[in-house]
């Protein structure tokens, strides 16, 4: 859009030559970005689509495929992995709702309540980002330790007879959702914080003046005005969480029956060397994410974000 605004400059402008020169400069400045995107995004995407249509090589060598138009890969991907796809969405959605429920009050606290104390506000923001300073893998493994069968949490809950003696926490859907929620929380909090930090409190005064109770002011004014942050925050969690394969992997927090799409794609690519199905699965995942996201964004009327 910015491009259009420059290129379609005022025609009646006496300095039309200058306008044209300006648009040429703009094109030139855009070039590196366009080349970068073409090489790193468009080309791999085309390659992915082509791979997803390949057939096994006639020599039947494992991991060897030829270019074809084999729609069957998609049928295989969908029929075989539909439950995994469903589970991925369920886990990601649950984690997204949890990050929202935990993250919104946190973002509100930092963005609105702490506004009078800029130092505390900065400190709280640093704390939100602090986990990023330690490797994501390490942190996820640490949770595995904490929730391991002999670990403090399970032992404690068993001692209280809340959990039976043969119970596991790691490897369960609970643990995977816990891991997703934990790992993606900052991605939800930061955009919501940005929206809430900009919230003009005079709107809340006006709402109170117009007979809205605190509860009503929140739902009718604060929340709608922070919606752009809520939408981008939840998308930043939901999209990567759906394709995540670390949390659900048996090496980390998951088990054999918690596999998500990411795990299946990883397995097909790296273990089974079934590149076409892995590629087909990736495309199915992409489309499956894009549709609900588009509906979500249009329902919340925050299209201008995209």
């Amino acid at each position, binding site marked *: 859009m910015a491009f259009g605004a420059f290129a379609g400059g005022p025609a009646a402008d006496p300095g039309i030559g200058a306008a044209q020169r300006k648009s040429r400069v703009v094109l030139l400045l855009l070039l590196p970005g366009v080349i970068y995107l073409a090489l790193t995004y468009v080309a791999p995407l085309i390659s992915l689509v082509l791979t997803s249509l390949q057939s096994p090589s006639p020599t039947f060598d494992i991991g060897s495929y030829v270019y074809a138009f084999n729609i069957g890969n998609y049928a295989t991907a969908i029929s075989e992995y539909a439950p995994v796809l469903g589970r991925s969405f369920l886990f990601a959605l649950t984690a997204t709702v949890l990050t929202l429920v935990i993250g919104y009050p946190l973002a509100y606290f930092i963005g609105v309540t702490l*506004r009078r104390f800029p130092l505390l506000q900065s400190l709280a923001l640093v704390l939100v980002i602090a986990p990023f300073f330690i490797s994501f893998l390490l942190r996820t493994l640490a949770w595995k330790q904490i929730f391991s069968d002999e670990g403090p949490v399970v032992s404690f809950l068993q001692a209280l007879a809340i959990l039976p003696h043969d119970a596991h926490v790691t490897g369960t859907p609970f643990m995977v959702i816990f891991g997703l929620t934990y790992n993606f929380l900052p991605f939800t909090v930061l955009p919501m914080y940005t929206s809430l930090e900009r919230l003009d409190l*005079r709107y809340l005064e*006006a709402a109170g*003046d117009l*007979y809205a*109770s605190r509860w009503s002011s929140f739902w*009718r004014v604060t929340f709608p005005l922070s*919606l752009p942050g809520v939408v981008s925050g939840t998308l930043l969690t939901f999209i990567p969480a759906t394709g995540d394969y670390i949390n659900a992997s048996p090496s980390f927090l998951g088990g054999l029956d918690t596999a998500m799409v990411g795990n299946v794609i990883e397995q097909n690519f790296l273990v089974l060397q079934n590149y076409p199905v892995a590629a087909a699965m990736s495309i199915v995942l992409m489309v499956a994410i894009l549709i609900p996201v588009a509906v979500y964004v249009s329902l919340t009327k925050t299209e201008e974000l995209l």
Partner: protein
Amino acid sequence: MSAFDDAGADLELRQITKTFPGFTAIEQLDLTIPAGSFFALLGPSGCGKTTTLRLVAGLEEPTTGRVLIGGRDVTATKPHERPVNTVFQSYALFPHMTVQGNVEFGLRRRGVKDAGARALEALKLVQLDHLAARRPSQLSGGQQQRVALARAIVNRPALLLLDEPLGALDLKLRREMQLELKAIQAEVGLTFLHVTHDQEEAMTMADTVAVMNRGRIEQMGSPQELYELPRTLFVANFLGQSNLLTGDVVATSGANTVVEVGGVRLSIPTARMQRTSGAVTVGVRPEKLLLLTEEPKAKRGVNLLGPARVTDVSFTGVSTQYQVEFPENSALPGMSVFAQNLVFGAVVNPGAEVWLSWSVDHGFGLADAAEPGSSFAAAEADDTSVAVAAGES
């Protein structure tokens, strides 16, 4: 709460004090605003007028004192429980709602049945019903101001608070809105409390003006009363311009008090003086002065000063403003004279020798003595920024 008085309600502030960390915004304020009146609270920024308004709206709590609306003590109630609506300085129109949605907001919160129809009616009153479906961001400043007004009056509050609502508008639009606002007040008959730092706006619109300074009300009365008979130095200077002279009371003759200023005797009606002994400051408005090019004969009932020299002449359209000095009498300060432009061109030019005269009836005496070189417009804390900061507490 649902049945608001259509005629408005009295507002009573009793012994209100409001202190913020580090300073006192309002000191021992007592104020009664009768139902149905258009009341203006006038003062420079930092004088406590916005804080007063916020106390009435319930957006601030008084440190001590009580707020009564229609005889009911509302001091402890929340903003949404008070029969009060505010037109905010920033308008604070909800950006995510349409104009209609904004105007309906208060009605819907109170569960009023025909909110839509009433909102449209209020929009008609401010002549914006054709823009009901727009967003506030698509309107001009003047239109937004009118939406803010409609959003408040649609609720028929007992008391309507106006927080410098015309401050963001340009001069011409402000004039129009002043008249419109006054007409609307007459039409709906609500009690209006208007806060402003614009003395002309306060005088044009309000039937009663209270001049506020440093958290206190200096003087209260009709615009004419305040202008013609200011009681304090602050009012004399803040509301229009004044020529002020400091001297000693030397005699009382009949209804007049004689004050000697730099050897010249001036008569002031005793009834128009706040103090009638010792050193006093007396004044006269610049437009009451007559500029004479020849020394007139002394007359009863007329004060005379001169000879003086014209130092500056500025043409302002309806009037010409002359600055004069008294080179032969250093005890007399420079004075200004506003003369209506009844003829083309200035009557005298800079450098001319003139005499000033005015009817004794037009003089006034102040309660406080003028400090030499005192300035009432000293920079003070901006009360809006203080109010917003405090609003978050």
